[in-house]
């Protein structure tokens, strides 16, 4: 969709990945994925369970190394980045994360500053500003003095977002950030991310499950199927009933709202 000639912030070229399995054939997860993310893009990643969405994020964050193909971040293969330098550019909001008990939220968010730490014991004024800004941007200022066991599911997610923002990344990878959230919290989290994307030029790649939420959230949607990119483009072009039926194996119908502003995808099964 973008015609810019600048180097993409992140890219995967013909990337293959399989998980080794003891005593069995390796499990192929990605079978030649091509994807480019330009700086400042907001992209939703969709696909059936097991289609390789989380693996793709883990390759971009350097947690996994591609079996074949090239994974680049900021013009450099991910494997060649020093860990700290990569962590200064890419932040991950994982599907599941333990929040250790006994730390206040502000202290947890300050852990997000670890890749930028310059003092052995203390924190710099820059660190403190970044933590404050991350708490504000994630709407978590009122949670700063709470402990993990005092957080609801939605509040927890805001804290995780704040931790990732404190990292001040160029690329933010979110693995199902709306999991366990009710509808209101899903919408407000995604709106907040959109605002951050707009205000700070943050590049966001988010794995989402809800087709309609994804369509409302992201100007670009990538659909993964069987370890390949099945479709990539504007939501209306990608999230068609036909494509979704093929990927998820569920009959779908597109319905246009009365105002005509938005089309919704409904399951018929």
């Amino acid at each position, binding site marked *: 969709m973008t015609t810019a000639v600048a180097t993409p912030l992140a890219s995967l070229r013909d990337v293959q990945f399989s998980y*080794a399995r003891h005593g069995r054939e390796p499990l192929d997860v990605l079978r030649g994925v091509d994807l480019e993310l330009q700086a400042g893009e907001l992209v939703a990643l969709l696909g059936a369970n097991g289609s390789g969405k989380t693996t793709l994020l883990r390759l971009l*964050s*350097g*947690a996994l190394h591609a079996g074949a193909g090239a994974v680049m971040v900021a013009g450099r293969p991910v494997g060649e980045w020093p*860990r*700290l330098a*990569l*962590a*200064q550019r*890419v*932040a*991950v909001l*994982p599907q599941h*994360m*333990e*929040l*250790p*008990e*006994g*730390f*206040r939220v*502000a*202290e947890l968010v*300050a*852990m*997000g500053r*670890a*890749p930028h*730490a310059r003092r*052995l*014991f*203390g*924190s710099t004024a820059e*660190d*403190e500003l970044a*933590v*404050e800004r991350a*708490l504000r941007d994630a709407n978590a*200022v*009122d949670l*700063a*003095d709470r*402990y993990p*066991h*005092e957080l609801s599911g939605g509040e927890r997610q805001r804290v995780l977002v704040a931790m990732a923002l404190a*990292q001040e990344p160029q690329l933010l990878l979110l693995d199902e950030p709306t999991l366990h959230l009710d509808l209101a919290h899903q919408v407000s989290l995604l709106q907040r991310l959109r605002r951050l994307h707009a205000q700070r030029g943050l590049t966001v790649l988010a794995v989402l499950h809800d087709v309609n939420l994804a369509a409302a959230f992201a100007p670009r949607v990538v659909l993964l199927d069987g370890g390949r990119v099945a479709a990539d483009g504007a939501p209306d072009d990608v999230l068609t009933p036909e494509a979704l039926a093929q990927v998820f194996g569920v009959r779908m119908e597109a319905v246009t709202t009365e105002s005509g502003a938005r089309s919704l995808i409904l399951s018929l099964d």
Partner: protein
Amino acid sequence: MRTAVAAGEARPLRMGGSVTRSLVVLGGGAVLLMALVIAAVGVGSADVSVGDTAAILAHRLLGLPLPQTWPATAETIIFDIRLPRVLTAMLVGGGLAMAGTVFQALLRNPLADPYVIGTAAGASFGAALGIAAPLVLPALAIGAGSSLLGLGVVQLLAFGGGLGTVLVVYAVARSAGRVQVITLLLTGYAVSSVLAAMVALLMFMSGRALGAIFGWLMGSLANASWPALAFATPLLLASFVLLLARWRRINLLLLGDAQAASLGTDVEREKLVLTLLATLATSAAVAVSGTIGFVGLVVPHLLRLLIGPDHRLLLPASLLAGAGLLVLADLGARLVPGGGIPVGVVTALIGAPFFLWLLRRSRLARVELSA
């Protein structure tokens, strides 16, 4: 203990624990520890007056040119027996508590202590071998009396046994360049079991040495000496400094391997380095005192309840608290009529019930907090 804060209230953001609070906690702890050490040196089964104790310490430690008004035996008791013993208690207690803090974070297991992945079993086997072998095979007795770095064969074998066992356990638990916590724990358990069986066999065959092996297993500071201190002190201090310098990475490991990695930590390398440093401290402590239990398990839990889980404060605080606790426990052990008992008995007898009380209390506290 924790007060609720009104939502959205404007207030300065508190990031880490405040520096002032940390300094108060550590400074207060250090002063208390010093007082405890001086008191422990002054108290014992033989009567040495407070004035004589102070004068001897001032003369020998600070080099004050005081006229010698005290009996020579008093000087021997204070300077050659009590002071090295109290300092050893301090060092061993601090080292075990610090290592326990690291292992509990590293293994993310509240039951972890410094011995959990094989240090104790390995050191015990080394020590038992050193004690029993010359009796079983008299030919070995020739080397038994010799010493290296001022340490006896038993102490050196204990040190090497602890360190070596952990290296073996780590290597066995490693697969495809990764060490999983649960595999490490189970491997440590299995290897420990084999070594414990061998210690039992040695005890069974050792006859006369049975009492000596048993005493070593219970842990005792009765053999404390200046040369042993000179061996253990640099090892313990070095591992403390290097562990403290890694406080941030230890905190990050609490978030889980994946998140620690995405925050820039080389998780596998960090696990190895932390295991080695904590094991070095543990092995040095065990070599000079035997396997003293409960200090390394209880102190970290106690401190987490009191001052929170941030390792920047937790590591130095566990060093101080472990030191103080073992000095106190050893004082109790020394004062038992009839020549005293092994300090390991005291820490287990008092430590275990205290730990139970703590568990109940913290569970209740958690319910209160989340209600």
